């Protein structure tokens, strides 16, 4: 129970890594604002079951990450509820594979809109609450593609590199207010994004890891748990690669 009584916001929890985080955080005693893009009765029902199972609160929250007004309304709601936010996990993201010369402007802008700008603005809102209370942990999900060069990932990789640079600056600015900010850089992880990779590339990537396998969403969630918890209280401004030792 590493997060007992703490409140967390997690974006992009409908599937994949975000969904795994709901399970892991709830199992460790956290109450969660679980963000998804669009309203769905199944999502509400599933999160209710998880909440009941672990005896925590899960509040489903729906908005498009590109909808600035909706995001602001969410921030106002948090403020009016007077609940502390101890952890913010910026997980929502999209990917796109295209060779550099084949990447249209609209795709490049969309990658940055969803993966970077929206994360920037949500963090502006939420970290203000954290700074006031002199504590908080911000966890941004980047990617090994933000550090390594990968063919076909110029737009996605660049947006994730921006996330890493932003995180380091946030850590430098907010450290003295007791707010930590770190990135997780997942390698190849078994999610919907993985199915966008050609199988030959996937095989090659697997063999390029020290562990010779892809990662699981729950394994990314476990590192988020570590960074959210007090086990990492002296860690800030870091990028932790959860990549099985990818070269």
């Amino acid at each position, binding site marked *: 129970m590493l997060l007992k009584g703490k409140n967390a916001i997690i974006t992009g929890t409908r599937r994949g890594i975000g969904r795994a985080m709901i399970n892991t955080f709830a199992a460790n005693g956290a109450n969660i604002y679980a963000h998804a893009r669009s309203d769905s009765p199944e999502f509400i029902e599933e999160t209710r079951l998880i909440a009941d199972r672990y005896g925590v609160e899960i509040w489903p929250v729906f908005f498009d990450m590109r909808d600035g007004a909706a995001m602001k309304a969410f921030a106002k709601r948090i403020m009016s509820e007077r609940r502390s936010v101890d952890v913010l996990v910026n997980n929502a993201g999209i990917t796109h594979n295209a060779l550099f010369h084949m990447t249209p402007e609209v795709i490049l802008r969309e990658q940055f809109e969803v993966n970077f700008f929206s994360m920037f603005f949500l963090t502006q809102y939420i970290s203000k609450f954290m700074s006031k209370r002199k504590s908080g942990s911000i966890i941004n999900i980047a990617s090994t593609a933000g550090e390594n060069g990968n063919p076909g990932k110029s737009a996605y990789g660049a947006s994730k590199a921006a996330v890493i640079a932003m995180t380091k600056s946030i*850590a*430098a600015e907010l450290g003295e207010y007791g707010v930590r900010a770190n990135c997780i850089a997942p390698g190849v992880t078994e999610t919907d994004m993985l199915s966008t990779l050609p199988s030959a590339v996937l095989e090659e990537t697997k063999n390029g890891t*020290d562990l010779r396998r892809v990662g699981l969403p729950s394994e990314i969630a*476990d590192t988020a748990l570590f960074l959210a918890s007090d086990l990492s*209280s*002296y860690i*800030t401004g870091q990028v932790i*690669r959860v990549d099985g030792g990818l070269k």
Partner: protein
Amino acid sequence: MLLRGKTAVITGSLQGIGKAALEIFARNGADIFACCQREDEQFAEYISDLSGNCGVSITPVCFDLLDEDAVREGAKFIQKSKRSIDILINIAGANFDALFHMVTMEQLKRTFAINFFSQILFTQYITRLMLKQGSGSVVNISSITALDGNPGQLSYASSKAALIAATKTMSEELAPKGIRVNALAPGVIKTAMTDAMPEDIRSRMIARSELKRVGLPDEVAGAILYLASDLSKYVTGQVIRVDGGIG
């Protein structure tokens, strides 16, 4: 209870970070071989209290890292216990400060003997035991000086840098066989070693850290626990800075 049912070997467990690791491992249910330089009545008493309180077994193993035969004997003692070893934490280390031109060959060799050669020798023995079961986690305690350099710490920083290169190489060789190998790079942690630092250097380093404070041994132990446990089972070949954010 992140380590229930696991057996760990911790070197340098008499004081500082090693003692903090010993404690957090015991509280998380691990049986422990606590390696230290020499028998100490106070330490024996401490171990017996800790193991009683936590319901785990703690076995002291004493050897001097300057004595290769003693290192072998220590490893063989652990081998003879016939226990499967899940975790090895290499914490023991020594520091000698001297400006580059004042470093004597004798001092340089001594530092490498303690911080590097003996650690490799010991790790060879213990990871052979891990290979039998095809799983394990090794955590090497390096230092941010290995990554950043530090005036007056040529021998120490170089020996800790060697440990990082060894960590990455071991990960490449052993992770395909199920053994993860990672390193931690602590910054300024409140221990006897940093208490001996000149005051102006220490305060300059604290000012550089984003959290504006020194770290505590417990905070490094928290990160050790993460790397030792299954929370990090897709993490290998990494160096994680536990430094409060030194840019």
